[in-house]
C-alpha cells in the first residue's frame, strides 16, 4: 500500500509490443530478390507453375495491443502477368503459395481484384490493381475484421471473425513483378489516423449515450469527501450546491466522527503526529495499551513511522534514531509488508540528503496523505458499527470509496472485454481518462 510507488513506476515504463518494420529475410519464398533496405522485393523466376509463388512476410506479427493495424504496398512493376497478392498470413504459412489460398491466410489479388481466404477460388471484392497503384491492408483488432484500400480509398470489410496471429504477407508470381512495402516509416496514402480518430469518436458518442442517474456524480463526490474525511471540502461543496442535508446525525453514533477524521488528517499534514495519536487514544482509551490489534495495527505503525520521518525532516537525527529504537520493535514481525517498509524507512538514515535519496518519496506530502489515508481507513473500520462477517472478509482490509469501486470495476471489465477478444485490441489505461 505505502511502498507501492516503486512498483507502479515500473509498470508505467513497460514497453509496447514490437511492430513490423521490414521484410523477413531469414525465411522467404523462392524466386525472390529482396532489396538491401528490406523494404522492396522482386520476382525473378518464370512463374509457370502454381507452386512457384514467392511469398514474403514481415519481420514481426501484427501487434496485439493496437486498435487498428495497417500497412501499404506500392506496385513498382506489375511484371508479365500482374498476379500480385497483398494480405496477411500466420506463422505456418507456406511461402510457395499466395496469401488467401491457405488456411489462416487472407489476400487481395491484383489480377482480378478478388479476395481470397482458405481457398484457391476468390470472391468478388474490389478493383484490380496494376503498376503505379498503392494497395493497403488493415486489421481492426477489436472488431476482428480485415479491410483493404486502393490508392488511399477504403474498400470495405473483406473478412470478419479473424482470429489468428497474423503477419503482413505479400505474394508475387510472374516475372519482373516488383513491389515496395511501407510499414509506416513513410506517410501512408490512406488516412489511417483519420479512420482511427473516427472510430474513437463513434465509440465516445456511444459511451455518452449511456444514461446514469442525474445526481450520480454529486453523490460520488460527496461520499468520496466523506470517506476520506475531507470535511471542509464537503461543507464547501454542500454550500456551493445548496444542499441542506444534515450529514452529522448519522455520524454521532460512530466511534469517530467525520470531524474527528478531518482533524486527524489536518494534524498529520502539519506533521503533528502526537496530536493525532492523542485523538485516537482519547476516543478509544483501550488503544493506549494495545496498538497492534486490527484495525489499528496499520494505523499506529504508520504513525510511528511518520513520527520518525517528521523528526528527520526537522533534522533531529539522534531523536529519530532513538524513536526508531524504542518504537519500531513493537511492530516488527507482524507482517512481511511491515518489515519491508521498516527497512525502506530506516534506509533514509543512510543518505545525507534523504529528500534526493531513492527513498525520497517518503519525505513528500503525498506520503503524509498516504499515512492520513491509512489512519482514516482504520477509523472508518472502527466506526462501522454494524459488525458483519462479510465486512472484513474477502481479504479486503480497507473499505473502498464508491469512486474507487467504480474505477476498479472499470479496469476489470475492460480487461475482461479484451480477454474475451482473445487478448487483442488496445489495453485500457485508466490514466488516459484522468490526466
Amino acid at each position, binding site marked *: 500500500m505505502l511502498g507501492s510507488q516503486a512498483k507502479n513506476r515500473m509498470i508505467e515504463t513497460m514497453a509496447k509490443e514490437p511492430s513490423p518494420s521490414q521484410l523477413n529475410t531469414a525465411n522467404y519464398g523462392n524466386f525472390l530478390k529482396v532489396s538491401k533496405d528490406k523494404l522492396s522485393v522482386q520476382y525473378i523466376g518464370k512463374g509457370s507453375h502454381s507452386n512457384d509463388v514467392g511469398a514474403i512476410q514481415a519481420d514481426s506479427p501484427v501487434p496485439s495491443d493496437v486498435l487498428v493495424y495497417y500497412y501499404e504496398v506500392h506496385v513498382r512493376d506489375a511484371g508479365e502477368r500482374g498476379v500480385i497478392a497483398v494480405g496477411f498470413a500466420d506463422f505456418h504459412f507456406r511461402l510457395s503459395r499466395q496469401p488467401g489460398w491457405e488456411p489462416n491466410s487472407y489476400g487481395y489479388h491484383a489480377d482480378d481484384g478478388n479476395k481470397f481466404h482458405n481457398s484457391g477460388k476468390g470472391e468478388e471484392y474490389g478493383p484490380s490493381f496494376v503498376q503505379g497503384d498503392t494497395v493497403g491492408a488493415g486489421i481492426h483488432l477489436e472488431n476482428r475484421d480485415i479491410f483493404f484500400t486502393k490508392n488511399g480509398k477504403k474498400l470495405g470489410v473483406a473478412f470478419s471473425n479473424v482470429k489468428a496471429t497474423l503477419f503482413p504477407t505479400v505474394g508475387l508470381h510472374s516475372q519482373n513483378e516488383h513491389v515496395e512495402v511501407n510499414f509506416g516509416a513513410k506517410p501512408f496514402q490512406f488516412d489511417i489516423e483519420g479512420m482511427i480518430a473516427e472510430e474513437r469518436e463513434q465509440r465516445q458518442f456511444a*459511451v455518452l449515450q*449511456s444514461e446514469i*442517474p442525474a445526481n450520480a456524480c454529486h453523490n460520488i463526490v460527496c*461520499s468520496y469527501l466523506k470517506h476520506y474525511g475531507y470535511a471542509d471540502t464537503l461543507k464547501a461543496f454542500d454550500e456551493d450546491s445548496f444542499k441542506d442535508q444534515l450529514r452529522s446525525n448519522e455520524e454521532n453514533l460512530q466511534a469517530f466522527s467525520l470531524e474527528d477524521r478531518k482533524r486527524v488528517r489536518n494534524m498529520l499534514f502539519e506533521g503533528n503526529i502526537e496530536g493525532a495519536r492523542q485523538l485516537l487514544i482519547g476516543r478509544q482509551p483501550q488503544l493506549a495499551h494495545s496498538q497492534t490489534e486490527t484495525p489499528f495495527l496499520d494505523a499506529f505503525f504508520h504513525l510511528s513511522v511518520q513520527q520518525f520521518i517528521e523528526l528527520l525532516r526537522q533534522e533531529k537525527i539522534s531523536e529519530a534514531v532513538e524513536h526508531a529504537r524504542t518504537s519500531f520493535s513493537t511492530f516488527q514481525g507482524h507482517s512481511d509488508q511491515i518489515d519491508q517498509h521498516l527497512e525502506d524507512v530506516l534506509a533514509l538514515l543512510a543518505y545525507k540528503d534523504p529528500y534526493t535519496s531513492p527513498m525520497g518519496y517518503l519525505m513528500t506530502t503525498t506520503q503524509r496523505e498516504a499515512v492520513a489515508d491509512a489512519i482514516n481507513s482504520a477509523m472508518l473500520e472502527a466506526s462501522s458499527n*454494524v459488525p458483519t462477517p462479510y465486512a472484513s472478509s474477502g481479504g479486503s482490509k480497507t473499505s473502498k470509496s*464508491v*469512486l474507487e469501486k467504480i474505477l476498479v470495476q*472499470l479496469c476489470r471489465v475492460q480487461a475482461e472485454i479484451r480477454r474475451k477478444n482473445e487478448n487483442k485490441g488496445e489495453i485500457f489505461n485508466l490514466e488516459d*481518462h484522468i490526466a
Partner: protein
Amino acid sequence: MKDFWSEDGPGSSTSSKEGFAGVKKERMNRLIMNFFVTEGYVDAAREFERESGTTTEVNLETIKDRMLIRRAVQKGEVEDAIDRVNDLNPEILEHDSKLFFHLQQQRLIELIRRKEVDKALLFAQEYLAPLGEENPGFLEELERTLALLAFEDPLVSPVKDLLGVQRRQQAASELNSAILHAQCQEKEPKLPNLIKLLKWSQNRLDDLSDTSYPKIENFETGETSRSSLQTPMVE
C-alpha cells in the same frame, strides 16, 4: 463466495496491474479536483486544495464568473444568471436555443414555485409559447411544466421532479458547460464520462459472453448485482 476477479485481474498478463486491486489516491484526487474546477465549484476546489494537497493548473479566480452564474441558477435566480451570462458573452445564449429554452423554462418553474400564478402565465405566453411553436419538443416540455399549476400541491404531483433540486442543478450544469465551451475550455468533467464508460463497458461485456460477473448496478453506491444480497454496505 470465491472472488470472480482473480488477484491480478482477468487476462492481465500483458496489461498493467494497477487498477485491479486499487487506484492511486492521487489519481482519484485529480478526478475530484477536475470535477470541482470544470463544474465551477470554486470554494470546494479551494478547500480541497488545502485539505488534500491536490493542485490545479486552473486559476481559481477565473472560474468565479461561472461560479456566480451557477449559484444564481441553483438559488432559483434564473434571471440574474441570464443577465450575468449575457454580460460575459451574449452569443452563448443566442447560439444555443435548447439551453435558452431550458433556462426560460426554469424561470417559469421558479415563478410557479413562488406561487406567482399570474406572472407565470404571462411569462409562459409571452416568452415560452413562441419558442414552443418552433420546436415540438419544447412545446411538450412547456405543457408538462404548466401542468404544475393544475395540482393543489405540486410537490406530490406526477410532475414533482420539476421542482426538485436536481432540476436546478441540471440547468446549472448545462449552462456551465456552454460557458466553458464558449471559452474554449475543457467542457465536460472527466467523472461523468468515466461512469458512463463503465456502464457502456459492462453492457459490452454482457454482449460478448454469458458468464455472469459482479456487475455494478447502482452507480451511486457502487453496489454490485451479485454481492448486493450478501454484503451490507460498509460506509
